C-alpha cells in the first residue's frame, strides 16, 4: 500500500511546481473541475443569491421602506463572503467526492503501487494535477460564481421588487482587497478539498466499503474545512481592516 502521508506530501510538493506536471493530465483535471462544475456552481450560487437578495429587499422595505442600499451591500457579500463559500461547498461535494473515490479505487486495488513499480510517479502524474486543477479551478469558478450571484440578485430584485438592474448594480462598491479576498478564499478552498479528498482516498483499505467511506470522509472533511477556513479568513480580514 502506498503510504498516505508521504504520497500526499510528494503530491503537494509537485503541485507547487506546476510547470513540471504532465500537461495532458493537468488539462484533463482542469476540464473535470471547471466546465463540468459550472452548471452546478451557477445553479447553487444563483439560488443562494436569489434567496438572500429577496429576503434583504423585503426586510429593507418592511423596516426602512427603501431598497437603494441593497445593491452595494449585495455585491460585496457576493465577492467576499457567499460567492467563495458556496463555490467551496459545491467543489467539496462534487469534485472532492469524485476525486476521493477515484484515488480510493486506485489505492484499494493497488494500482498506485503498480504504477510505482513500473517507474511512474503517481504523486506527480495523478495526484498533483488534481491539486493544481482544484486550486486554479476554484479561483475560476469563484469568478464565474460571482457573475451568477450578481445576475441572480438583479433578476430577483427586478422581478420581485421592481428595482432596475442599473440601480441595483454597483461595481464601484467592490474594493481591491475584496477581490483579493475572493481569490484567497477560493484558492484555500481548492487546497482544502484536494487535501481532504487525497488523504481520504489514500487511506482507503479494502474494496467497495472503503471507497464509499473514503468519498464520505472527503466530503465531510472538505465541507468542514471550507467552513472553518472561511470563518477564520473573515476574522483575520475584519481585524486587519479595523482602524
Amino acid at each position: 500500500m502506498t503510504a498516505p502521508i508521504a504520497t500526499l506530501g510528494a503530491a503537494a510538493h509537485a503541485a507547487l511546481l506546476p510547470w513540471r506536471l504532465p500537461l495532458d493530465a493537468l488539462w484533463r483535471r482542469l476540464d473535470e473541475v471547471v466546465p463540468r462544475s459550472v452548471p452546478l456552481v451557477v445553479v447553487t450560487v444563483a439560488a443562494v443569491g436569489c434567496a438572500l437578495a429577496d429576503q434583504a429587499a423585503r426586510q429593507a422595505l418592511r423596516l426602512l421602506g427603501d431598497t437603494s442600499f441593497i445593491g452595494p451591500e449585495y455585491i460585496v457579500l457576493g465577492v467576499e463572503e457567499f460567492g467563495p463559500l458556496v463555490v467551496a461547498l459545491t467543489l467539496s461535494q462534487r469534485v472532492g467526492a469524485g476525486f476521493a473515490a477515484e484515488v480510493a479505487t486506485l489505492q484499494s486495488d493497488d494500482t498506485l503501487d503498480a504504477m510505482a513499480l513500473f517507474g511512474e510517479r503517481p504523486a506527480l502524474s495523478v495526484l498533483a494535477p488534481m491539486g493544481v486543477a482544484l486550486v486554479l479551478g476554484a479561483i475560476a469558478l469563484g469568478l464565474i460564481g460571482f457573475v451568477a450571484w450578481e445576475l441572480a440578485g438583479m433578476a430577483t430584485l427586478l422581478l420581485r421588487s421592481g428595482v432596475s438592474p442599473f440601480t441595483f448594480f454597483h461595481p464601484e462598491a467592490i474594493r481591491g482587497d475584496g477581490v483579493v479576498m475572493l481569490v484567497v478564499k477560493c484558492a484555500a478552498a481548492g487546497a482544502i478539498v484536494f487535501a481532504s479528498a487525497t488523504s481520504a482516498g489514500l487511506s482507503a483499505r479494502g474494496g467497495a466499503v472503503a471507497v464509499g467511506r473514503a468519498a464520505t470522509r472527503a466530503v465531510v472533511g472538505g465541507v468542514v474545512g471550507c467552513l472553518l477556513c472561511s470563518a477564520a479568513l473573515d476574522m483575520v480580514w475584519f481585524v486587519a481592516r479595523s482602524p
Partner: protein
Amino acid sequence: MAVLAALGEVVLQRAGDLGALLLSARRALAAGGRLHIDAVETLRQTHRLFFDAVPLVLVAGVAVGGVVAMQGLMYVARYSASEVFGWAAALSAYRDVGPLLLGCGLAARIGARVTAELAVMAARERLDAVRALGLDPEPTVVWPRLVATVACSTLFWAPACTLVLGVAFVVASLIGDQRIATSVWSVVSYVDAGTLVNGLLRMVLFGLIVGLSSCHAAVSVEASEDRSAGAIGRAVYAGSVLSLAGVVVANAVVSLLGGTG
C-alpha cells in the same frame, strides 16, 4: 460548446433524477401513511445517524457562527447599528444562513453515509438477500434511513442554530466589541415565532431532500450493471451533488415563497 453540452447533460440528468425522486417520495409517503415502515429500525438508524453527526454539527456550528458574526459585524461597523445585530444574527442563524449551511453539512455527513451504506448493500446483493427472505427492502432497509435523516435534521435544528447564535455573539463581543447583553435584548425584542417556524420547516425539508437524494443515488447502483468499488464512489458523489443542489434550490424557493417572518 463544452459548457453548453455539460449544461444540457446536467439538465437531462437532473430532470431524470427529479422524476425518480418524486416517485420515491410518493412511495415513501404512502408507506409512511400506512405505517408500513419498520419502526424499530427507524429508531435505531435515527440514534446511530444522530450521534454520528454530533461532532460535525458542533464543528460546523462554530464555523457557521463565525461566518454569521463576521457578516453582521461588517454592517454594525458601517452603519453603527449594534442594536439590531442580535436580531440580524438570529435571522441568519435560525432561518437563512444557519439552516442552509447546516443542511449542506448534514448532506455531507448523513447523506453521504446513508448513500455509501445502501450502495454497498445494493452492490453486494444484500438487498436481494432481504428479498429472498420474503421482506421488502424499501420499508425495512431504505425508508427507515430516509425517515431517520429527516428526524436527525429536525432534531439538530434547535441545538445547532442556538450554537451558531451563541458563537456569533461571543465572536462579535471578542472581535467587534458588541455587548452580549445588547445582542440578547435585540433577539428577545425583535425575533418573532414565524422566523423560528420558518427555519424549522426548512430543516425538515432539507432533511427530506438529503434523505431522498441519498437513497435514490444508492438504490440506482442496483439497477446498473457496474457494481464495482468505483460504482459505490460514483453513487456517493451523485448523492452528494443531488443533495446539495436540492438543498440550495429548495432554500431559494422557500425564501421566495415565504414571508419576512
